[in-house]
C-alpha cells in the first residue's frame, strides 16, 4: 500500500488533490481511497487530506499516520503543523516552493531521506502561469507522478480532465505536465550532482 498525506490550507484544493490522485490510481486499475481530515469549511485554515493506493481492496479507515509520500501545498505550515510526523524513512516529500530545503530550514530532513525523494516545485507559480489561479494541487500531482511513479502522468491527466472541463482542465494538465518535466529535470541534476 502506498499512502499519501497532503497538507495545505483551505482554498488550495487539498481535498481535490487527494481525490484526483485516487481517481488517477483508479484509472490505472488500482484500488484507492481518498479522504479529508475534516473540519469546518474555512478558507486559510490548515487542511489535511489522505490518499491510499493498493492493488487490492483497502479496508482500513485510519488516518494516514505513516505516509509514503507527503505533499505540502503551503510551506507556511512548516512552523504550524508537524508536517513530517510519521514519514517513512524511504518516503517522498514534495513541497510547493521555489526555495531549497536548506533555505526553508529543513536541512535535517535532507539528511534523513534519500536525496532524490525530496523536491521543491514552484507549483503556485506554475499554476498561475497556466491557469491564472494560485491553486497548486493539480500541479503537485504532476510532480508526485514524476518523483514517486506511484501513478503515471497519463493517469493524472485523465483524472484532471474527468474532474474539470474545457480550458480549466487543459490549463491544469499543462501545469501538471510542466511540474512533471521540472521534477524529472531536477532529478537529472541531482543524479548528476551525486552519482551514487
Amino acid at each position, binding site marked *: 500500500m502506498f499512502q499519501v498525506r497532503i497538507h495545505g490550507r483551505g482554498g488550495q484544493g487539498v481535498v481535490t488533490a487527494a*481525490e484526483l490522485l*485516487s481517481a488517477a490510481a483508479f484509472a490505472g486499475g488500482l484500488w*484507492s481511497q481518498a479522504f479529508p481530515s475534516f473540519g469546518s469549511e474555512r478558507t486559510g485554515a490548515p487542511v489535511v487530506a489522505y490518499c491510499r493506493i493498493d492493488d487490492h481492496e483497502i*479496508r*482500513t479507515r485510519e488516518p494516514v*499516520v505513516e505516509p509514503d509520500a507527503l505533499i505540502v501545498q503551503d510551506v507556511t505550515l512548516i512552523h504550524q503543523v508537524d508536517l513530517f510526523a510519521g514519514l517513512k524513512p524511504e518516503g517522498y516529500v514534495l513541497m510547493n516552493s521555489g526555495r531549497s530545503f536548506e533555505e526553508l530550514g529543513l536541512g535535517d530532513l535532507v539528511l534523513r531521506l534519500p536525496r532524490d525523494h525530496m523536491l521543491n516545485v514552484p507549483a503556485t507559480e506554475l499554476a498561475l502561469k497556466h491557469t491564472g489561479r494560485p491553486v497548486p494541487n493539480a500541479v503537485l500531482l504532476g510532480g508526485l507522478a514524476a518523483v514517486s511513479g506511484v501513478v503515471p502522468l497519463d493517469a493524472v491527466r485523465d483524472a484532471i480532465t474527468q474532474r474539470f472541463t474545457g480550458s480549466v482542465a487543459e490549463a491544469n494538465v499543462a501545469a501538471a505536465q510542466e511540474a512533471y518535466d521540472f521534477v524529472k529535470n531536477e532529478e537529472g541534476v541531482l543524479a548528476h550532482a551525486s552519482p551514487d
Partner: protein
Amino acid sequence: MLRQIEGSRAVAEVVSMCRPEVVCAYPISPQTHIIEAVGRKVKSGELAPCEFINVESEFAAMSVSIGASAAGARAYTATASQGLLFMIEAVFNAAGLGLPIVMTLANRAIGAPINIWNDHSDAMAVRDSGWVQLFAETNQDAADLHIQAFRLAEEVSLPVMVCMDGYVLTHAVERVDLPGQQEVDSFLPPYVPRQVLDPSEPVSIGAMVGPEAFEEVRYLAHVRQLQALELIPEVAGEFAEHFGRPAGGFVRPYRTEGAETIVVAMGSVLGTIKDTVDALREKGTAVGVLGITSFRPFPGAALRDGLAGAKRVVVVEKAFSIGFGGVLSTDVAMALTGLSIPVSTVVAGLGGRPIMGKSLAAVFVDADHGRLGELTFLDLRKDLIDKELARMADRRRSGPTAENVLRDAQSVLPSLT
C-alpha cells in the same frame, strides 16, 4: 459500473435511481454532499418527477416527508447528529404512522460539546423509535443498502434509516460499483401504499388512541419489525442474485471460524478491525469479527449463532449510554443469554477520534489473555481526565469542562501513533 466516487455522491446516485418523488433537504454536516447532489439531479430534470424541497429545519424535513409519504409518494431525506435530534419527534411519528420513508443518517456525534465528527450517538438516540436501522461498512455497502432500504420500507410499511459514518464514508472517495437504472427498476417496484390520503377514498390517519388500544397498536409496530427481520435476508438474497454482489442481511462474519475472541462492531470501523484481525491471526491470536448490518430489527438469533463458538466477545462501539456503558453490547449480551460468553465493551472513536489498528490490536490481545475489563475507552487520555477532576475538586468555580480539557489537550499535543 465501477466508479471512483465520493460516498455521498454514490448514495445520491443510487437514491436517485430509486426514483423518490419528494426529497427534503436541510443542510447539516456531514450530510450536505448527498442532498446537494440529489438536488442537482432534480434541478436538471434528470430525476423526475420529483419535488425537491428546501425546508427550514430538520423537524420540517421529516414532517414534509411524513406528509408526502402519507399522500402516497416515495419520500427521502438525509440528516445527521443534531439534525436527527431536532426532528426526533417526527422520527418517532413517522414510524408510529407506519410510513416507509427512507433517510440517510450520516452518523455524527452529538453535543455539547459541539462536534461535527463521526460517532454513532445519533443513531443510538433513536434506537427505540421504530425505524429499521441499517449500518454501512463501506460506500459500496451504503449505496447497496439504500436500494434495499426502499424495498424493505415499502414492503413492511416502516421507515428505514441507512446509517453511514459521517466523513469517514460520506467524504471518502473510493471504488463503488453503481448499478444501472434498469437494474434498480427491476429490483424496486413502484410504491403502493397501504394507507393513503386519497380523495376518492377518504381515511383519517393519525387519530388519538387511548389505553384501550395503544398497546396493541404498538405491538403491531413490533410485529412489523419482526416481519422486517424475516424480510431482510430475503431481500439481501434477492439483491445478491440481481446485482451480483452481496449486501445487507443481518451479520457478516470474518475469520470467525476457530476464533476464541470474536469482535462485534457496526459501520466503517469493521474495515480497520478486519485488517487488525488479519495481523493478529498471522501472529497466532485466534480472533475474528462479526459485523452487524441490521441493528433494528436486532438479529438476536443470527448473532447467537455467529458467536456461539467464541470464548469471549468484544463489542467495539462508537457510542455509549452515559451512566451505564455499551448500548450495542447490551443487545449482544442479551442475544447470548445462557451461553456464559463474557461480553466486553470497547467504546471507541467518539467525536471522530481516529480508531487506530494498533490500539485495537492491543485491546484484542488483552481480551485474548483474559485481561480486558467490562468497559474500556479506547485511547482515553487519563491525564486530561485526572487534571479536570483535580480542578473540580480544588475549587467550586472550576469553569466549563470542555474548554478546560481542550486547553489541557492543546498544551501537550498527543502523537497519533
